[in-house]
């Protein structure tokens, strides 16, 4: 069959460009169309397109220079990258229960199984105090916060190291990494929280109005996890000792916090200072809101709040101070 040449693309373009479209060609060892056959307009060119339509994009001016001393938290930049933050969280959630049999059931199973173990060993055998609340209920409530906290802290401390490849290839506010690492656990917490009314009913209790305040104490636990996580994540980049330290730290923190016992176990004169461990306020407050245990633990929550704020602020600044070397010390 004979086709008029005029109706065809230039033969060079046919030979050089057509196989590229499907990307499967092995016929050419060429990396570029030869100059002679370079087509005037290429369909490939269109994919890059022109700069964004829909009004001129605001001019973005970036000034790159050495950073000395302490860097401020660039809230504006973080806000610009909020969508990326949600993508990080979304990725973690997507990946979390892939190829698992039980999926999100794990979120309930973990604290529930731990609760059973704790009830047997700490409740029955050791006879730990639980503020007059049935021990299973007491420990399950504590474990909701604790499981979230331990997970978030561990994830946050590994967040930069785990994303080292990305950190050394792409710029984005590094703070997104530890922050996003602390968020997926909230979904697990929410799922496990659903078990709580069931348990309350089982033990013949009804939740009071304070249960609406429970998220505030989760927020407190979150800020502690993030604050400590920021420190650990930044140190972890230089010293992988952190990887070995964190499991130990988490275990230590568990027994240093009123998870398996009520604060009443602590000698009375030390109790005001006990809340220097900011998890004390978070746990006490959370139990108060869910289990309606007596009066609101003002002093514990107040002190923990201050410590948590200090930890978070110092963590943020330390992280910002260290992040300039993240890509170099990989």
């Amino acid at each position: 069959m004979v086709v008029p040449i005029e109706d065809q693309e230039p033969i060079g373009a046919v030979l050089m460009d057509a196989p590229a479209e499907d990307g499967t060609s092995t016929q050419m060892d060429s990396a570029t169309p030869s100059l002679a056959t370079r087509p005037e307009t290429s369909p490939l060119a269109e994919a890059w397109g022109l700069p964004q339509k829909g009004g001129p994009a605001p001019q973005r001016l970036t000034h790159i220079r050495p950073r000395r001393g302490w860097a401020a938290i660039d809230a504006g930049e973080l806000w610009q990258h909020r969508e990326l933050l949600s993508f990080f969280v979304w990725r973690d959630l997507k990946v979390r229960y892939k190829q698992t049999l039980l999926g999100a059931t794990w979120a309930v199973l973990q604290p529930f199984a731990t609760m059973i173990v704790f009830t047997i060993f700490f409740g029955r055998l050791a006879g730990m105090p639980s503020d007059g609340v049935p021990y299973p209920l007491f420990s399950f409530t504590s474990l909701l916060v604790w499981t979230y906290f331990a997970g978030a802290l561990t994830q946050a401390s590994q967040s930069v190291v785990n994303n080292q490849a990305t950190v050394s290839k792409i710029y984005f506010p590094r703070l997104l990494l530890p922050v996003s690492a602390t968020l997926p656990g909230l979904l697990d917490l929410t799922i496990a929280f659903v078990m709580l009314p069931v348990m309350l009913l089982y033990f013949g209790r009804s939740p009071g109005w304070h249960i609406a305040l429970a998220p505030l104490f989760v927020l407190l636990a979150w800020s502690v996890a993030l604050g400590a996580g920021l420190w650990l994540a930044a140190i972890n980049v230089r010293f992988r000792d952190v990887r070995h330290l964190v499991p130990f730290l988490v275990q230590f923190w568990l027994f240093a916090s009123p998870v398996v016992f009520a604060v009443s176990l602590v000698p009375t004169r030390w109790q005001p200072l006990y809340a220097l461990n900011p998890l004390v306020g978070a746990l006490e407050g959370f139990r108060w809101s869910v289990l309606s245990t007596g009066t609101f633990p003002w002093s514990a929550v107040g002190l923990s709040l201050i410590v948590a704020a200090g930890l978070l602020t110092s963590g943020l600044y330390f992280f910002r101070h260290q992040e300039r070397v993240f890509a170099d010390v990989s």
Partner: protein
Amino acid sequence: MPGTALQVEGLGKSYRIGAAAPTRRSLSEALGDSFKAPLRRLRAGIGGGLTRAEPFWALRDATFAVSAGQVVGVIGRNGAGKTTLLRLLSRITDPTEGQARINGRVASLLEVGTGFHPELTGRENIFFNGAILGMTRREIQSKFDQIVAFADIGPFLDTPIKRYSSGMQVRLAFAVAAHLEPEILLVDEVLAVGDAGFQKKCLGKMQGASRSGRTVLFVSHNLAAVQHLCSRCLLLDRGRLLVDGSVAAAVSAYLDLLREEAPSAVVDCRGRAQKSTTDAARITRLKLCDAHGRPTTRIAFGADFNAEVVLQVSRPVHDLSVGLGVNSLDGVRLFTSESRATQPLERIEPGSAVFRLEWKELVLRPGLYSLDLGHNSDAGSEFLPGVVQLEILDATDHNSRAVIDRRPGVVLNTMPWSVALGPGTLHQGAQTCA
């Protein structure tokens, strides 16, 4: 949008290279050290580095400006500071000194597939990778179909990419990257990965980017690509900006650098003979020179060069001929050239003789070749296989008019075609074989 897209002033980045620990003198000291060490390490770490260290400047004093819409190539040898420059400009790492101002939305492509997660499906990775490269969700959505079509992964869109072939992963990664629409694009050597088809696709994209008025900084070892795409070129060497100017000037200076470090172009051939049936004549030396007489084993594509063979003759020989064979690296003899063909010699007296082969018009494709030498005469012969490797560079010298022919094949040709249009008609200038 006229104006300056990129203004770089005295930009520099130094790294500290940890010095070796001082040697210990005794066992007790060593034991003591092992106890002290954790503390010292901790202190050093807080102090901001390893033990006392020499700064190493990966880049220093880089000053240049790029106006909007320019496509600038960045070339240089390994460790010249090219990637450091891109890392600084894309804010992955902070400079040690100097500053840069960037006017516009930047996207950098230092690697394709950054942030890909093996457990996520192709669809999910498109969104995540796009987001991490700086696209908004809406942008990704609007280009989603284009990306999928470009990557050609159709039926596997909802399969976790850990089940993809590596080729598919690369295609998908590049498809996402290719649909970025920044005002300033920083690209590093992404063309080095993937098969030829993929590289071609990348170049097509780059070309498109330059046509649509985007500012591009393009780091590459692929000189042909730089020559093809860029209107201007920076040459870096050992952290310094050596040339900032036309592509031709930068490439030419780069070729000079390559020649400097090329394996010696003067080869002592004594004792290299593998088969020898005579000692009447011995090849002692081979020298390769470019057209300007500079010794080199690296020749730009299409450039002329000379091979000089020195022969020591110890007693008179007749009908001597020097031969030079060129092999591809897989051992295929491409051609053999003998001096006898153009310079028959009846008799040579004792002494040294210089045979010069002017390498002209025969154009080798870019790549490595190995040269065999030999001679024969009535007295016997000598054969020296693989005396030197010749590298034909993937770049043309600035005064060469050669165009690198990238069509596949072992040999190059410029044979003319003729075409007949329609049954029985003759197109202008075309002839038929009756």
